[in-house]
């Protein structure tokens, strides 16, 4: 698989390590009343779709940036690549 890095251009997926579903960006509020339930779901439950899947890849052998890659889990086709930093900021995170 070739991942089209937003800054570095097309890179071999072997340069990256894989973490998992990009929902891991959305860490729950630890002060919420149901924080324990929210964290349990956040840590352990996954949508695991067959089809488009937004996921976190780390460019370990490159610029060490985190990317949000949208990839089809049935065909392995990569549909979109974004910097995780931009995705997090767009969701209101400070970094």
């Amino acid at each position, binding site marked *: 698989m070739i991942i089209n890095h937003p800054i570095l251009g097309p890179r071999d997926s072997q340069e990256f390590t894989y973490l*998992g579903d990009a929902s891991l960006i959305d860490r729950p509020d630890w002060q919420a009343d149901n924080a324990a339930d929210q964290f349990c779901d956040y840590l352990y439950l996954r*949508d695991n779709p*067959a089809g488009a899947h937004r996921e976190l890849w780390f460019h370990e052998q490159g610029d060490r940036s985190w990317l949000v890659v949208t990839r089809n*889990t049935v*065909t*392995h086709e990569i549909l979109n690549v974004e910097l995780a930093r931009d995705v997090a900021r767009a969701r209101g995170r400070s970094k």
Partner: protein
Amino acid sequence: MRYSGLKVIKEALTGHKGWRPTWRDPEPKKSYDVVIIGGGGHGLATAYYLAKNHGITNVAVIEKGWIGGGNVGRNTTIIRSNYLLDGNEPFYELSLKLWEGLEQDFNYNAMVSQRGILNLVHTDAQRDAARRRGNAMILNGSDAELLDTDGVRAMYPFLNFNNARFPIKGGLLHRRGGTVRHDAVAWGYARGADLRGVDIIQNCEVTGFKIENGKCLGVETTKGFIGANKVASCVAGSSSRVMEKAGMRLPIESHVLQAFVSEGLKPVLDGVITFGAGHFYCSQSDKGGLVFGGDLDMYNSYAQRGNLPVVEDVMEGGMALIPALGRVRMLRSWGGIMDMSMDGSPFIDKTHVDGLYFNGGWCYGGFKATPASGWCYAHLLATDTPHKVATAYRLDRFRRGCMIDEKGQGAQPNLH
């Protein structure tokens, strides 16, 4: 029709005209006591033991493709009982004991071959871990022997003992482990279940569940609605896709694992060798092909095929361990989809929906578990209580903090 040596001779003398189809091909009835989703090894074993152990024969196994076409036909056929933790080892030991009597039990030649499994160690720390694991196995009624370098050399003199990175310092030998003809497991269970009245319905995909007031009343399928008192999902690899139709999110990711077969060779390898440090394991099939595999591709996938970097990684692992492999030509490779759970251990449990049961999360250990999985799932379906060796396989164990994490990796499914 019972199979026997006498029957083979009789058929040979009469032109093989007496063989009959091994199972029927029925249309689904309007309703059943139990509908099992998934005609793989585990689903067919569940149906077999429901009928045989509990006398529940008004059962259908529905399969979207053909039986045995999923992971029971895509694995590397290894059976073993060499787990460490109390939540796991009694279950896998039951499974191995069932394998030992399986062929006589269901009157089908599954070619169970207890040829021994050797886990190699390369450091003092690994030797300590192997000793601890071996003791845990023995405490749970399994068998284990710790070999030193000479012990391994006597068994497999052709290994590379002086690899600079991973010199072989010994191994943990599990003599009762081995291999099985995997397709025959599906066929044997299918035949045994069918003979007892279970309907095996192929080319019938589940498209939804009918759930009213918190109770599951049956399944919608491509062959129409099928009612059921109890619905049992048993579709490891596709668990999230199926259970999503019942509104469930699971502690599971689907990952692809590749396996490989070489051209046929004369007998060179009489057991199973695992080289965990190099992400490689190998055995030789009765046809002569070397059967081997390695690591996951590491990313979520439903593709039943992997990519080339892992092919290269597995071949490098093989060459590091067995330099003679360099002369061997690869014949085939394939991928199977694993339910990778959050702690590396499976589930056999009820769900929050009354009458809906779940079996899955087998990671890459589903094949060896087939008999015990069917045995324990049938027990749960028949009695509504977990079998005593499967009490830890609950869906809520993460919430309770009772994970069964053999490798201590935490909630990162691709590392288990």
